């Protein structure tokens, strides 16, 4: 399970004015899973393919997929530090890290890396997932360095 935290706590993002998901038939399982502390991805019972983002079918073989719960551990596959974004609310949050995180289970997802200085983020850095509650049935997953790697709270998105 992953921690589900309230917005704006110690190093936890305040999601005010961020674009948020328009929950649909497929994504509702993912977002409500996160709200309940379960980070979900899809696995194909026919061919074993694992995928993220969630779709209505397996991208490898077109079969129906099943949901699997991830451990919530991963590594930074690649990242950038956004230092210029003129749009609200991002202009107030600079600089912040946008990363592609690879789950231990394989699939990758975009997220922010929080709870560390932006200059401390590295490719292959081990990270853990937590979710920030938005409303009933919706929480947004974020990632932070695993405890052993975490620095004193730096700027975070």
């Amino acid at each position, binding site marked *: 399970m992953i921690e589900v935290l309230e917005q704006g706590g110690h190093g936890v993002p305040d999601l005010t004015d961020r674009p948020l998901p328009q929950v649909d038939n497929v994504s509702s399982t993912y977002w409500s899973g996160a709200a309940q502390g379960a980070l979900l991805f899809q696995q194909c019972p026919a061919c074993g393919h694992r995928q*993220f983002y969630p779709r209505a079918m397996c991208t490898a073989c077109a079969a129906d997929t099943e949901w699997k719960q991830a451990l919530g551990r991963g590594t930074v596959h690649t990242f*950038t530090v*956004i230092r210029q974004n*003129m749009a609200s609310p991002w202009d107030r949050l600079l600089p912040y890290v*946008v990363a592609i995180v690879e789950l231990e289970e394989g699939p990758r997802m975009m997220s922010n890396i929080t709870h560390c200085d932006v200059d401390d983020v590295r490719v292959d850095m081990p990270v853990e997932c937590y979710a920030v509650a938005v409303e009933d049935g919706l929480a947004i997953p974020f990632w932070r360095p695993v405890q052993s790697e975490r620095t004193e709270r730096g700027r975070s998105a």
Partner: protein
Amino acid sequence: MGDRTPVIAGIGLSDHPIAPELDAMQHHVLAMQRALADSGIEKSEIDGYMSTGGGRGTESGVAMAEYLGIDHRWVDSTMTGGSSFEFYVQHATAAIREGYCDTVLITYGSDFLSQQGRSLGTSGFQQPGERVAGALQYEAPYGNVLVGAYAMAARRHMHEFGTTSEQLAEIAVAVRKHAQLNPNARYRDPLTIDDVVSSRMIADPLHMYDCCSITDGGGAVIVTTAERAEDLRTPPVYVLGAAGAQTHWNISQMGDFTTTAAATSGPEAFAQAGVRPEDIDTVQLYDSFTITVLLMLEDLGFCAKGDGGAFVEDGALALGGKLPLNTDGGGLSACHPGMRGIFLLIEASRQLRGEAGDAQVPDAELALACGSGGWLSCIGTVVLGKEHP
């Protein structure tokens, strides 16, 4: 049937880099008028039309066709982003070879700089608090920007292969040298590697001068048969190969951040043309960012994967170097109105026609245009030649 070998028979540019007096549709019009005049082909001969649309009520190809008054029997609004125009050449050559149409007009026009400023690379695509549907709902909460997508590819390339910011800067410096030869280029001041790597970081590891300009501009290309081009006033440029491929659309779905679909479309275009990378005299590559060029050079086979950094060193891409790049000053320094693909075809054609002036590559016989659309997503490769295949 006569000789249906596809050729580029006409090219036209609208006005750039700053043209506040023109809206997007007027850019299409001006470019079309100039391409028609360039070729000597009558507008009434156009029976194929390809465009991503023009904005302000003409967002589709067919709306733009109506505005331009094109009576087509073959239309294509494929939207792969900035590489749409290389994909159009692929589609146009297939249609012409098969006889579905004889003469295809491709147009593009954008008033991006005058209407929206330089916001493309570093503003969100959503409004504050917007609810975002579809695949982007999984990215939008995290505040990525266009530059950030390319930055993540650059970061991964640096991690895997040791590529440096100085090597990426070589690309910007070479292109700027060519912009200095183009009076219509957006930026013409001298630029050094040190200038690039000491410029403001926009999205690590990409600096300001790793990022392209934003301009106004438009272009048009007319593709027809070798038979039709025989008695035209300008020499035909032969389409020897044209291929397109896609690896993803949204950046989070890029499987290998160091390899683009040019690794598929490049070899296919080369195979059609029956030539190899070392035969190419000049390349016009989509320089949205320096990393875009580096990845393409590797994926197209000009060097091995991972060797791009070393390949571009010591001015290799400047005129006089082993592979002159973007001889019009590219998107980095000359012209990038949001989608740059058509300008690659136009500059490659100018080179093969021997019309590139001070930026002419001596004896240029083979040129390659490679466009990237989306976020390194859809890559179209076109091989052009001076001689009939």
